[in-house]
């Protein structure tokens, strides 16, 4: 057979999937090439690109952290929980109420502080809330965001999901949309719909001069990195080393077998909700610390990106969720090199998700369930 025939044969054997991979790969290559050439000839500022990568990583950590819980409940209960974004918001409000209370004890009424200043008046800036000035208030807030949300999510499971155990993915999914709406408007009812600033500006930061400009990482960025990485590491160790974690993985592998092996499945489900919820609450708290603002629907808006990250990474895998979160976060911010920014970056997130699903429908970490 001549070389030409071989080439033709290979061409015939190429599936649309491979063609797509080729096109996507080529596109990615061109963009990367443009980025490198642009940086080299000065069209794109190095420090600006570096800032995008840093911001994207931070955003990705939040998405990934929140995504772990979504992925865990998906792999063990087999349904996509649309209320997860509102768990994120709830946790942020629980935690920030405590932070306001600790940082501003006596500066305003108890109600004003615990409801995170629903009306104008004393707010985060006046209370000088920052990890440097009020470290204890922030640590207490993060703790309450985690534990409070865990208990809150457990309560929701008992009231809403437990009676429906075993009714299949679709009824549970639709129910969770209802839970999401109910939660969101209860949040508006309790905490008001005002968007408010929560932290002090002008924080101390670590600045790095990068050829043509500064890249700075302030103390809240640092706090986010440390807390998020610690929590992710904690989940990893929990899943790999503890009896509970192994049972969670066992259950995500095969629920019926877990039952006949004597694993108390109901107890594992409870812990899954609580751990997933606690991580969602922590992610919400950290997001508010990072952005410096809180409002009633930021978790809901974040949910679509969390879904994109989790699906991209392979739903059911916590490592996929973390990895997917970072990919989504970084590519969203990096796309601002070409796009005008703002909501346009969302296009990037979902475009990447769509492309990954077309090429590898089970997600990047798909098929490997790691709870």
């Amino acid at each position: 057979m001549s070389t030409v025939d071989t080439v033709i044969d290979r061409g015939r054997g190429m599936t649309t999937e491979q063609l797509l991979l080729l096109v996507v790969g080529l596109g990615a290559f061109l963009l990367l090439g443009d980025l490198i050439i642009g940086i080299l000839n000065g069209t794109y500022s190095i420090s600006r690109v570096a800032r995008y990568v840093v911001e994207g990583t931070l955003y990705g950590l939040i998405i990934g952290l929140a995504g772990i819980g979504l992925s865990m409940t998906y792999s063990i209960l087999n349904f996509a929980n649309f209320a997860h974004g509102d768990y994120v918001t709830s946790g942020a409000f629980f935690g920030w109420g405590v932070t306001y209370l600790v940082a501003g004890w006596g500066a305003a009424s108890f109600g004003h502080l615990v409801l995170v200043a629903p009306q104008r008046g004393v707010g985060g800036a006046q209370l000088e809330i920052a990890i440097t000035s009020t470290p204890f208030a922030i640590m207490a807030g993060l703790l309450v965001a985690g534990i409070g949300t865990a208990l809150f999510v457990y309560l929701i499971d008992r009231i809403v999901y437990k009676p429906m155990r075993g009714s299949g993915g679709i009824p549970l999914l639709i129910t969770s949309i209802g839970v999401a709406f109910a939660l969101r408007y209860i949040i508006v009812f309790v905490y008001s719909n005002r968007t408010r600033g929560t932290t002090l500006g002008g924080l101390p930061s670590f600045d790095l001069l990068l050829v043509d400009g500064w890249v700075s990482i302030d103390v809240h960025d640092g706090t986010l990195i440390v807390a998020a990485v610690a929590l992710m590491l904690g989940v990893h160790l929990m899943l790999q080393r503890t009896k509970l974690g192994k049972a969670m993985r066992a259950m995500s592998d095969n629920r019926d077998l877990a039952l006949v092996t004597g694993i108390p499945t109901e107890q594992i489900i409870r812990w899954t909700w609580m751990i997933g919820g606690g991580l969602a609450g922590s992610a919400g708290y950290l997001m508010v610390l990072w952005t410096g603002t809180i409002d009633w629907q930021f978790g809901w808006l974040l949910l679509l990106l969390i879904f994109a990250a989790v699906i991209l990474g392979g739903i059911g895998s916590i490592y996929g969720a973390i990895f997917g979160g970072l990919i989504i976060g970084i590519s969203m911010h990096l796309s601002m090199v070409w796009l005008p920014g703002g909501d346009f970056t969302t296009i990037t997130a979902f475009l990447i998700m769509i492309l990954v699903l077309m090429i590898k429908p089970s997600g990047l970490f798909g098929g490997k369930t790691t709870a």
Partner: protein
Amino acid sequence: MSMLDVNGLDAGYGDLQILSDVDLTVAEEEYVVIVGPNGAGKSTAMKSVFGLTTYMGGSVEFREEEITGRTPDEIIHQGIGYVPQNDNVFASLTVEENLEMGAYILDEVPEDALESVYDQFPILRERKDQKAGSMSGGQQQMVAMGRALMLDPDLLLLDEPSAGLAPDLVDEMFDHVDAINDNGTALLVVEQNAKKALRRCDRGYVLVQGQNRYVDSGDALLNDEEVRQQFLGG
């Protein structure tokens, strides 16, 4: 007095009745096999003992205690273990983690039980850090049996331990099953390899259309002209 005493059991799934008036006994340390044509309700009978079917009547007594209506983890506490036929390992867990799961109801992993499982299935010790899902069918079956042995059950229910194995591995699997019985664990085994199973067991049941048809010692069933003609292929 028998250890397991199933009396006039009616059971099935939902509204569908599969078993009617099934009697079944297993004595301490006895090796009992259930054979019969496809769809006869062999697996259903076994699952009913473990509380995995819809109970419709009759009784299942273990050591003179009624166990119908109990959940699997309660039945495990009583001293009964169960190895399902398919998908019987946690694929993404390592071999050792699979074994640990078998002892979940205990506060700590029983090291002596783990050692004795490894002694019984040396290949599992060799591969203890390998993911169970990446092992061969025969090895997965050993993982599944090992997991059920972690609590040292008095009665072990095995659903077709030789199913899907290469012919040369079938005898090896039967040897492992014999060894479990030799250690004092009573067995209730469902088998497709009827002749091989009947040759090794103490007693056999032939189940047809959800009812007991023949009960006798393994040898007697093998030599029964009618049983041979109808169920053992001559």
